[in-house]
């Protein structure tokens, strides 16, 4: 039988097993009862048979007495009815005689039967002669023959009674023995029924326990799973029945749930990291803005004031003042904006304004030049990324510089990146500072040298720009700082992923 076939499935099913157990038990009990029934019937039939010969002998004697009685009546009054009855009884008697033994055997009962048979024949012949003599009215002869019949009848009755008594005694013994055997049989049957009954109960108990064991195990495991503990061993599959199928499905389901929960956990972890990053970015922006606002006292007020100043300068015809104030106003306006992102062009405009202000402040001391690919000015970049770099160059790069100061900005497309180069010809940046800005590996001494506190209070700072760019583009490679050595200038390149 192939595993998986219909027949195999049926034979391994709970229904089949339960049916087998119950049909088997019921079958055995039925067989025992049927055998008992047949046997008891047989015994009862045998018991009934015990006295059959006694009944026959009684009937034989009765017929004999009837014959004698009828013959006597006939002799007394020659009644036709009596003679008819006589013949009828003779016929019955002869029929009964046929059942008697006629052989010489070493059995006392059978010998007596033979004697009764032969005596009966003699008696019937004598009776027949009596009736014949009566018909012939031979009084002397029928009287003599009748006396003989009386004597013969007595002999016969004695013989029949004796045989009947002897048979009855023997049969009574048999009957007694049968009854005792029956009583024994009843006791043994009862014991066996009790034994078989007990075994049946035990068998049913064990069978049902065996059949329901996988189900109970499954239920127990399901309870554990319900309580929330999923990290458990799969349920062992003992049988190939319905419970086996359900157990297999349960194991698969348990595995699927565990896998699904793991996937969800991973997704949540990723999402959480993402949110955390975004939150951090916002925090940095807010931090930059806060720093800026803290530095620029009430920029809105200042911005409005500057606008009023610009209007006043224009009315008075002071064009350079007007332009100067306008740039200052633009510069602060840009800083007041709260957007996280801006176009590269807007960033460059801010740098323009800043450089104008600086040059006014420092008497066109710094030569500012741009080489811009105009097609790239629309790309979106995080706001406030260029101005801090330029401010850094102005504040730190040109510190104590006596030579002509240059700041060049170059925007071009290289590979898939928009490269924004901000180069100066200042004092340059030491590799340690570059490392700190790029990877956060500064020491306390280096911090002092680079005057980070000043950076924090007066400018947004390179580090801030670098981290914001990394968060914005989700990539590490966003900035390159090159400085060939002291007084060799610094070139900071922003690498902005370019998307068509």
């Amino acid at each position, binding site marked *: 039988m192939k595993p998986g076939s219909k027949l195999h499935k049926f034979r391994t099913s709970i229904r089949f097993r339960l049916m087998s157990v119950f049909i088997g038990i019921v079958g055995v009990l039925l067989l*025992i009862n049927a*055998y008992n029934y047949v*046997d008891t019937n047989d015994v009862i039939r045998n018991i009934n048979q015990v006295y059959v010969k006694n009944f026959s002998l009684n009937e034989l004697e009765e017929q004999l007495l009837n014959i004698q009685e009828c013959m006597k009546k006939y002799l007394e009054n020659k009644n036709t009815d009596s003679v008819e009855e006589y013949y009828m009884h003779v016929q019955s008697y002869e029929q009964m005689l046929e059942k008697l033994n006629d052989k*010489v055997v070493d059995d006392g009962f059978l010998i007596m039967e033979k004697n009764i048979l032969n005596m009966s024949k*003699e008696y019937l012949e004598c009776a027949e002669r009596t009736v014949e003599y009566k018909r012939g009215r031979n009084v002397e002869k029928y009287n003599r023959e009748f006396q003989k019949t009386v004597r013969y009848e007595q002999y016969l009755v004695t013989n029949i009674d004796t045989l009947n008594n002897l048979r009855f005694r023997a049969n009574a013994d048999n009957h007694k023995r049968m009854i005792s055997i029956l009583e024994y049989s009843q006791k043994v049957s009862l014991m066996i029924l009790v034994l078989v009954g007990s*075994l049946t109960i035990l068998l049913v108990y064990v069978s049902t326990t065996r059949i329901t064991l996988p189900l109970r195990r499954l239920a127990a495991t399901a309870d554990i799973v319900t309580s929330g503990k999923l990290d458990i061993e799969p349920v062992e599959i*003992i049988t190939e029945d319905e419970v086996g199928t359900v157990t297999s499905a349960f194991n698969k389901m348990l595995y699927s749930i565990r896998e699904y929960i793991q996937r969800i956990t991973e997704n949540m972890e990723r999402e959480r990291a993402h949110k955390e990053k975004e939150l951090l970015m916002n925090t940095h922006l807010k931090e930059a803005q806060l720093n800026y606002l803290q530095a620029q006292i009430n920029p809105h007020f200042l911005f409005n004031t500057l606008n009023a100043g610009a209007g006043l300068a224009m009315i008075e015809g002071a064009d350079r003042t007007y332009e100067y104030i306008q740039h200052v106003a633009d510069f602060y306006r840009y800083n007041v904006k709260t957007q996280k992102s801006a176009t590269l062009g807007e960033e460059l405009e801010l740098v323009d304004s800043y450089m104008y202000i600086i040059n006014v402040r420092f008497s066109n001391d710094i030569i500012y030049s741009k080489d811009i690919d105009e097609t790239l000015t629309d790309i979106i970049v995080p706001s406030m990324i260029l101005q801090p770099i330029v401010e850094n160059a102005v504040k730190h790069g040109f510190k104590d510089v006596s030579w002509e100061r240059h700041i060049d900005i170059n925007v071009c497309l290289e590979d898939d990146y928009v490269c924004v180069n901000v180069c100066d010809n200042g004092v340059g940046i030491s590799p340690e500072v570059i490392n700190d800005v790029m990877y956060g590996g500064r020491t306390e001494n280096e911090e002092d040298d680079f005057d980070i506190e000043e950076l924090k209070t007066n400018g947004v700072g390179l580090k801030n720009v670098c981290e914001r760019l990394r968060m914005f583009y989700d990539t590490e490679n966003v900035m390159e700082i090159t400085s060939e050595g002291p007084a060799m200038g610094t070139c900071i390149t922003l690498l902005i992923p370019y998307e068509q």
Partner: protein
Amino acid sequence: MKDVEKKRRPDMVIIVLIIIFFIAFLVTLINFAVIRRNINNSYNVENQTQPVQYEKHFVLINNNEKTDVWNSIYESAMIYANEHKAYVEMPINNFETEYNKYELFEMAILENVDGIIVEGDGSEKLRQLISDARDKGIPVVTIMTDAYDSKRNSFVGASSYDVGRELGNQILHTINEKARPVNNIMILLSTEDTRSSQHTMYLAIMEKISRLFGGKISVELVDNSTSFSTDETIRDIFINMDNNADIMVCLSDEIMSSAYQAAVEYNKVGKFDIMGFASSDDVLDGVKRGIINCVMTYDRKVMGRNCVEALLEYIDNGYVSEYLMVDTTFVKGDNSTLTDNASQ
């Protein structure tokens, strides 16, 4: 997913239980089968062995006595008959109603048996019945006592006359051997048998001793008409006897047995000698114990066998010897070997 290995455990408990279950079932069936066989055996107890079939049916009829002597005779007759495909029936053993010898004889004639062995007597009735049987072609053998002048085919037994003479010799021998003089001899006879064997024995004894014994010889008739009369008469004799009997001669088993018991009960043992003709086990036991001095007996086995032999011979050949004598033996208290042989 890690595959769970499917296991098929053999349910040993269930298998063991099922085995026990079927053993119990088998025990039940065997039990019922045994019970059934026992019941059938009980029912068919008389048919368990197929009865042996014989060709001839003989009947042994005596004087309505169920003594061990007759039983011995019957048994030996039956053994010999069985060996020759014949069956011997002793109706006296069967009937609850007591029939006399003549009625039993008549029944045997009616039963149309193949041969009749009868304890003979001198009665006319028996002679007539023997004649009726012979008319029907049934051979008749008399045993123990002959039926004189009857048509019986043969007689098997000891000659009463010879037995009487031997007893006479023994009485004389005892008289001569006794230290004290013997003055009185008492002979006990059954009333119902005075005309046949005992009477003949008595005559033979008298013939032998009367000329040589000068003392008194008295005859006491013992009533044996009913079952208990013999014993009662003997007791009366013992009570009323005047202590002068020196030898008591009993001529039948019944008389001898009663006399022996009375002698013990009335403390007469050793006061007189008891002797006679008998063959019952009781009497032989009395001889063994020394209460009865001597008894003349015969071989019962030979007697029973001879009867059947005579009938078969007549049926086969149409003739048979008229007398088949059985040897007699004297058994005394001092020859126990002889006693044992006779009792067998």
